Structure formats: structure tokens, C-alpha cells
């Protein structure tokens, strides 16, 4: 019995680690969709760019320099890529989400194909930085140290993003743009700049999540669509445009993917989308949705 409890406590812990990673991945998608009203299907591709970058830089051997270098480079690429996507979707602002989806999906396909051409067809692994690549004994069983650290990193980023949106002038501007775009423009703020900023920061989080997720997921062809679906599920469960919603959604999905699969192994394929269906029936706008989406 104690063994059963300990095993499931490890699943809970692991759910936190996966949830932390999913939060970093999904919060950008949630902000861009919820606040700027752009459905960015290239979000998964940005994640995979980060993952391949980490694989390329740490390919010669794991070191802190290579890992932090990959994080820095991924952040820059995320900023630039997000800015570019924002400019590309600008002409589609007044058109339907489907047009944006078509454009960003096309970008995602092109990026994925380019990555396959550059990095080859074989799946690549990303080693954790030295010191974090081992295992730590938790509840009497080995647990990867890197994942423990991931929980802390995710928590720090969650607090950072929340402070940025809720407690800074930039955050106030973003929230004001969501509430009344024309009024913000009337007081002399170019709301296209606000959109570019949010888009760039959201994309930065996606590429950074790719590097952080590298030691867990690796880098491979097809990973982009898998993580995009996970991120979309997180956003749907948490509700659009809310940092708190993305955090809760990510933690819920993390637990479903870990504890849910451990408790109901025979239903492993169904628990994720079962939970999604349940949320859609009970709260169609997501757990924390509602205040956004009324921008149009």
C-alpha cells in the first residue's frame, strides 16, 4: 500500500514538472490568442525550433555554456520570429480566425520542413546540463533531477509573466488594448506595437520552452503538432488570455498526463480528451475564460 502511494506521489510530482513545461509553452499561445485575437498555429513550430537549437548546441557534449547559449539564442529567435509573425498577420486582422490559421499553419509546415532539411530525419536527443543529468531519490525511487529543477523554473517564469501582465505599465497597456483598442489608440498609443510586443514575448516563451523541454522530449519530426495540440488543450481548459488560466490549465493537463495515466492505464488514450470534453460541457469558455473574447 505504501508502495502504491509512493508511486502515485511520484506521478503527482511528475505532473508538476510536465505542467510547468506546458505552462511556459502555452501561456504565449493564450496571450496572443486571448489578448491580440490572433490564432497562431505556428506556436508548436516555435517550440520545435528551440528544441532543435538545444540539440544542435549540446550535440558536441552537454555543458552549461551550450545549454544557456541555446536558451539565449532561442530567446532572440523567438522575439524575432514572433515579431515577424505579428507583421505577417497584421493584414488579416479584420478577417476571420480561419485566415490566420491558414497563414500560420503554412508557416508551421515550412518551418518544420526546413528543420528536417537542416537537422536530418533522425530524432535527436538533448542532454540535460551537467549536474542535472542524474537522478535524485524521491519517495524511494529514482527521479530525474532535471525535472525537479524544471518545476522551479516554471514557477519563476509563471510569477514573472503574471507580474509583467498585472503589475507593469506594459501589462496595463496590453490589458487596455484588449478592453478597448480604439480608446488606447485615441490616447496616442500605436496598438500595432502592443501586438508586436505581446506576439514577440509569447513566441520567446515558446522557443524557450523548446530548449527547456529538450531534455524531456528531445527534438524530432512531428513534435511540433503534438505540442501544439497539448498547448491548445491547455488554452481551451484554462480559458483564453489569462495567465492564471494557462497556469491552472497546464497543471491540470500535467496531472492528467501523469497521474491520470498512472491510475487509469487502460484509458490512457482517452483521459486527456475526456477531461477536455468535460470542461467544454461544464464551462465552455474554460476555467478562467470569460473576460476576453469580447474584444470584437
Amino acid at each position, binding site marked *: 500500500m505504501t508502495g502504491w502511494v509512493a508511486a*502515485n506521489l*511520484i506521478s503527482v510530482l511528475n505532473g508538476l514538472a510536465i505542467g510547468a513545461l506546458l505552462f511556459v509553452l502555452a501561456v504565449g499561445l493564450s496571450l496572443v490568442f486571448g489578448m491580440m485575437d490572433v490564432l497562431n498555429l505556428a506556436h508548436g513550430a516555435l517550440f520545435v525550433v528551440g528544441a532543435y537549437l538545444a540539440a544542435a548546441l549540446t550535440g558536441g557534449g552537454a555543458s552549461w555554456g551550450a545549454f544557456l547559449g541555446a536558451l539565449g539564442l532561442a530567446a532572440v529567435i523567438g522575439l524575432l520570429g514572433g515579431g515577424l509573425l505579428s507583421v505577417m498577420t497584421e493584414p488579416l486582422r479584420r478577417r476571420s480566425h480561419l485566415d490566420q490559421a491558414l497563414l500560420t499553419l503554412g508557416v508551421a509546415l515550412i518551418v518544420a520542413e526546413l528543420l528536417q532539411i537542416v537537422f536530418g530525419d533522425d*530524432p535527436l*536527443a538533448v542532454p540535460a546540463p551537467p549536474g542535472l543529468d542524474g537522478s535524485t531519490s524521491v519517495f524511494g525511487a529514482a527521479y530525474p533531477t532535471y525535472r525537479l529543477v524544471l518545476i522551479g523554473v516554471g514557477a519563476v517564469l509563471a510569477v514573472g509573466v503574471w507580474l509583467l501582465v498585472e503589475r507593469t505599465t506594459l501589462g496595463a497597456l496590453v490589458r487596455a488594448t484588449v478592453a478597448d483598442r480604439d480608446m488606447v489608440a485615441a490616447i496616442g498609443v500605436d496598438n500595432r506595437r502592443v501586438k508586436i510586443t505581446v506576439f514577440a514575448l509569447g513566441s520567446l516563451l515558446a522557443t524557450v520552452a523548446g530548449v527547456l523541454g529538450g531534455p*524531456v522530449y528531445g527534438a524530432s519530426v*512531428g513534435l511540433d503538432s503534438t505540442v501544439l495540440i497539448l498547448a491548445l488543450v491547455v488554452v481551451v481548459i484554462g480559458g483564453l488570455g489569462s495567465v492564471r488560466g494557462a497556469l491552472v490549465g497546464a497543471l491540470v493537463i500535467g496531472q492528467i498526463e501523469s497521474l491520470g495515466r498512472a491510475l487509469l492505464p487502460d484509458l*490512457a488514450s482517452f483521459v486527456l480528451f475526456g477531461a477536455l470534453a468535460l470542461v467544454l460541457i461544464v464551462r465552455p469558455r474554460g476555467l478562467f475564460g470569460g473576460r476576453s473574447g469580447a474584444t470584437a
Partner: protein
Amino acid sequence: MAEFTLSRRTLLTLFGAAAATPVLAACGSSVGGGSAGSTGGGATGPVKVGLVIPQSGVYAALGTDMQRGWDLWLSQHDKKIGGRDVTTIVADEGENPQTGVPAVQRVLQADQVDVVVGLVNSATALGAAPVVSEAKKLLVVTNAGAADITGKARTPYVWRTSFQNAQVAAAAGPYLAQQNVQGGVFLIAPDYAAGTEVRAGFKAAYEAAGGKIAGEAAPPFGTTQDYQPFLSQIRQSGAGAVFCFFAGAEAVRFVQQYAQFGLKDTVPLYGSGFLTEGGVLTAQGAAAVGVKTSLFYTDRLDNPANRVFVDAYRGAYQAVPTCYSVSTWDAAAVLDRALGKATALDGDALSAALGGVGAIDDSPRGPWTFDGQNPRQTMYLRTVEGTPGSLYNAVTADLGQKAQV
């Protein structure tokens, strides 16, 4: 006047479409070689082969190995199969039947090939079987391992030079039973057709030899990024060993996470050979060392044909061959024998000729014969050895000649 303009435009459009159709149909398949005419009946006329392999998507790396095996055989045999000049039409199978079956249709109809070779995906092979049967052309499957291809859905026009999923897994059953694993073996493979066949094949062979299954798990295929819940289940079960089947990125993640969660040192990991075959082994790194798998080939096989083959392959591509290269190489080898005997290039004549090729004694995998339309071949137990960057599958045991199950 307006009517005249309209009809002229319509006419031009029709002309344009008519002119473009053959061009479009030829797109996507690259034509190699230079001989014309496809159904030349003479015993020494040219033969046109459609090599349908993945050039895009998650299986693209396998496609590369398959093409290399095919090209190497041809370059070593004066670009002739059975005395006939060969034209190879390469088409992209993609990831699934939605792309793979149309690719087979296209090489048959637009390119008028005589024989189709390739196919990684089992669903694609099962979808292509009625297509080639209707066209009465031969299909030589060089990877797809579903039992139905040469079993329940068997047609005389579809032969296989690779393996059957359960055949590979079942070979390890009696071996593990002899090891007398304390606590039994835990069985894990994804919840799709191939995974189910592997679990059933291993379980039947292992239990028949007196083994006890400690538990089973079927992680969702293609969407499982994290195996922690299943690894936890394995630890709980008290199993003394694990037998698994994963391929591609899933193989990399499973083997790495198996080590990260501390199971590698306490519960030995066994699997179908694809777990550690080709590019995935490089990515797995140190986590793979000591993993034991069953398969019909490893580049470390010590026989004269394989030594020559590996040297030539290394020389041509600066890479080591995989089981995918060998299956496609052997497809050329059996076609060579069949075409040498057949009087015509239709599926009936070639199928009859393939039935009479007898033992293939010059294959890099060792001698094998057709049993039904699937190889009866020696299975080897292989252990991953070496250091990260230069890992390889060493031969640990000869598991004996196995037919499809």
C-alpha cells in the same frame, strides 16, 4: 461576340489543362535511368521498378536507408536485375496510407511500372495490396510488418523481404523463458496495430516456453511524450525484465526515460530490434548501452556476405547499413532471381517465379528462404555496446531460424 470570347477562353483552358495533366502526373516522382517502354515482353527487355519509400515525414530516415540498399545493389550489378536494364521510379510514401496508397497508384498508372518495391507503413501496404492485385503487378514489401500482409489479407501479388512484427518479438520469447527471469517479464508496446501484434507474438511464445507475464501496458501511440506513468507501473509490478517495442522518436524517449527513472540498472530492458536500430541508437546515447533486442540483422553479423556488404555500404555512403537497407537490398536480390526465370513481367509470372527462388544464400543477414510470402530467417539477440557516438548492436545469441507466426 461575348459568346465567341467565352468559348475561345474555355477552349484555351481545356488545352492548357490537357497539356498540364501529364506534367502534373509526372511531378513528385523522379525518373532515373533512361530506357523507354515498360511492358516489353521479351526476356531481355527493360524492367521498370517503382520504389515507393518515405521521403518526408517521421519515417524519412528509413526511406533513406532503403534507397541506399536498392541503389547499392544496382550499382554492384551493372544496373541490371535478372539480365534486364532497370529504370527506377522513386515516389514518396509519406507517413500514412493517405499519401502512400496514391503514390503506389501513381507509379502503377502514370509511370506504368512492372514491379513496386518498398513501403514502411503497414496500413499503406494493406491499402496497396488490392491496388496491385487489381493491376496484376508484383509488390515486394521491404519493411511493413503487419501479419495480415502475408497472412489473412494475403494475395499472390504481395511478397515481403523484411519481417513480420510478431516473428521478431516471438523470437525473444523462448530465450527469456530460459533465462528464468524472477518476477516475470513486463510487456509494453504502443496501442496501435504493430504494438498489439508484438505484444501478442511475444506473449504467446514466452508463455508457451513456460514464462510468466508480470504485466502489460499500451501507451497511446504518437501522443505519448512522457513514459513516467508506465515506468511507475513497471516498477510496481515487480517484473524482473521488460520487453518492449518502440520505434523512431518514441524509442529514443523510452530508452532515455527508462534510464533516467533508474530502471536500467535494476530491470534489464529487452525489445524488438527497431528499438535500437539506425539513427535512434545515436540519439539514445549512454542510456542504450546494455539494451538487448531481437532482429534478423545487425551490421556486426560475422559472415562473408555481410562483411563485403558493410564495406561497400560504408564506402558509398559513409554510414553503417540498417535492417531497412538489407530488406531492400534483398528485394533486389530476389527479384534478380525471379526475373531471371520469369517469361513475363506481369504479377502472375513473377509471383510464380518468386515461389521457386529457393534459398537465398548470399544475403548479408545470412541464409533465408520464403515461407509463405514472408522470410523464414535467423533471428539474433543483439546487445548495445560501445560508447556514445560509436554505439553498435553486437551479436549475443543466435535465436534460430524463425518463420512467420
